[in-house]
């Protein structure tokens, strides 16, 4: 395997890992605030649809982005309503959100575009095109450094850079700002926040809204960055993988980057090497395709360190029984 191949695989890992990263950071905000969210998948799907649809109609990817994020946030609001206001079961709400997105997108797509639950193909300004970083062309033949710069770092859509920038920003917000302090506190012990004179409800809704935005960006990237339009169920389980990555990362932003990129890398590798011949036995394609899921289970089994979720996670804040 030469260096160029490694760079190509890593490049693919970055693209495949980016939606996972956005969704994972989305989940991080929510779960750090004590709201479990298995509805990331649905939020991404909703965003993918609305961004694809609006970008197709207007021909403008940015309008698509707004619409996509709006779609995702509306589901985030539903989840917030269920888990914050009505103190319902957060897992159940997440399941409902996923179903809602999977039915709703196709239903609307069909009655809007009559293309079998698909949006029209995007082109031109309807998509987020790759950005070539300055000087990338010039250095692309410089061994190693130039190759990395031109082929790995350069040439992604704006949303990839946004996603990567979100990692330090998330870290900074979480650990260096007042909002972050309160957010982490409300996920650990909402009573401490309440008795400190801060509204638990407002804080948690804010967190859920941020989740909506980030998950939305993930979906937008799928439909308008990676693909060129919406296809039903196009998230294909990525929301669940992001969730697994979040646990793997122990709810921390920098490890979240590592975890999502690892999953991206695994998928990139299985795309590149559909069958792995081990000499004695050839691993079938079905095995390679299951590897990310198997790995997730192994990670969750705690052989790579035990993850302690935010203490108040998953429980509605109930003062009076």
């Amino acid at each position, binding site marked *: 395997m030469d260096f160029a191949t490694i760079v190509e695989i890593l490049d693919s890992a970055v693209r495949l890992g980016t939606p996972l990263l956005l969704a994972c950071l989305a989940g991080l905000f929510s779960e750090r605030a004590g709201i479990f969210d298995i509805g990331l998948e649905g939020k991404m799907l909703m965003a993918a649809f609305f961004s694809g649809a609006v970008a197709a109609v207007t021909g403008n990817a940015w309008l698509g982005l707004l619409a996509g994020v709006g779609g995702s946030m509306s589901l985030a609001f539903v989840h917030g309503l269920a888990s914050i206001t009505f103190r319902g079961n957060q897992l*159940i709400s997440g399941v409902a959100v996923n179903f809602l997105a999977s039915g709703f997108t196709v*239903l609307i797509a069909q009655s809007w575009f009559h293309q079998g*639950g698909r949006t029209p193909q995007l082109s031109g300004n309807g998509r987020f095109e790759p950005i070539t970083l300055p000087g990338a062309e010039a250095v692309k033949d410089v061994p190693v450094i130039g190759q990395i710069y031109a082929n790995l770092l350069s040439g992604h859509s704006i949303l990839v850079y946004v996603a990567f920038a979100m990692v330090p920003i998330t870290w900074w917000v979480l650990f260096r700002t007042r909002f972050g302090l309160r957010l982490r506190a409300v996920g650990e012990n909402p009573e401490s926040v309440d008795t400190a004179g801060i509204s638990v409800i407002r804080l948690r809704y804010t967190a859920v809204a941020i989740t909506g935005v980030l998950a939305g960006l993930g979906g937008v990237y799928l439909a308008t960055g990676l693909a060129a339009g919406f296809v039903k169920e196009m998230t294909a389980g990525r929301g669940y993988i992001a969730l697994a990555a979040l646990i793997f990362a122990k709810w921390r932003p920098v490890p979240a980057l590592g975890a999502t990129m690892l999953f991206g890398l695994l998928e990139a590798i299985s795309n590149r090497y559909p069958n792995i011949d081990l000499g004695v036995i050839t691993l079938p394609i079905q095995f390679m395709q299951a590897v990310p899921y198997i790995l997730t289970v192994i990670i*969750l089994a705690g052989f790579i360190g035990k993850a302690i979720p935010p203490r108040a996670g998953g429980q509605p804040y109930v003062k009076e029984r």
Partner: protein
Amino acid sequence: MEKTPKWVDVALIPVLNLLIAFVISGIVVLLIGEDPVKAIKVMVSGALGSPYGWGYTLYYSTNFIFTGLAVAVAYHASQFNIGGEGQATLGGLGVALVLLAVPWPHWTIALVAAMFGGALFGAAWAAIPAWLQAKRGSHIVITTIMFNFIGASVLNYMLVNVLRPPRSMDPATARFPAATHLPTFHDIPLVGQFFSKSVPANVSFFIAILACWLVWILIWRTKLGFEIRAFGRSEPAARYAGISPVKIVMAAMLISGGLAGLMAINNVMGEAHRLVLNSVEGAGFIGIAVALMGRNHPFGVFLAALLFGFLYQGGGELALETTIPRELITVIQALVILFTGAFDNMLRAPIESFFVARANARKEA
């Protein structure tokens, strides 16, 4: 505290929630430019208007009873089993292997063996997530989701590379021998005359009812059920009482997986007579909604499964007869889960405080 009458809890609130879900679904139908009244008519007549409709409705209900019971049993041990889909998939594999391996002389014997195979494979697929939860605290929600994906890969491999008859186009097993075909409603004496030959509802329906009864016995009459419920309500108390968390999580999840796996006697053995890819078609997930609606009680699960059977058959007819896409059913299903599950307190809180206020007023008087 317990001042709300029981009927409010088990009947009024669920029915109201259901109503809201349906009203919103109606609005969605309006939004996509269709006629909700006509939609309801098509659904009702398609699902309940004829023995033929009933034959399908009860077939789907049978699937949902099994998966609903699966979710309910795990839920009593406070385990949220989202893996019904994968467990039912593997159950199908178990049933197929059993039926293809031996030339069964009669369907009754085949059925017993197939039930064993389906339950065993379903339980096995639940065992690893259960063990990881019990021993290592791995979140069972995530692990069971992962096992759904892994299950799909296993089935794909088995069907394409192992079980597919040579030169068959279909990634499916061979047809099971005729001797193993279960009697459908048409073949049952007395009622058979009402049902046409083609209805898929079969004797599995009665097995499902039997399963409801057995689950009821298990949960409310046996030591194990007692322990499962105790553990589900309070893990520390269960430990105090000498109830082993590992044992209970394993037992509840194995039973849960087994029930999900049993579903295969209906769809694989009873209907398709062979195992195809994606034979479960989401029934595992619907089980969640069914258990929620049925308040995790076998009788409630039975009623809710009938409701979802109706939704499925009615919704299918709807898509066959109108231009409303089948995804409408998914939306209705989502709304039902949302309102009867996650938004439950929306109505419950005001209704309960109404009854509390009434109780307090009576006390004053």
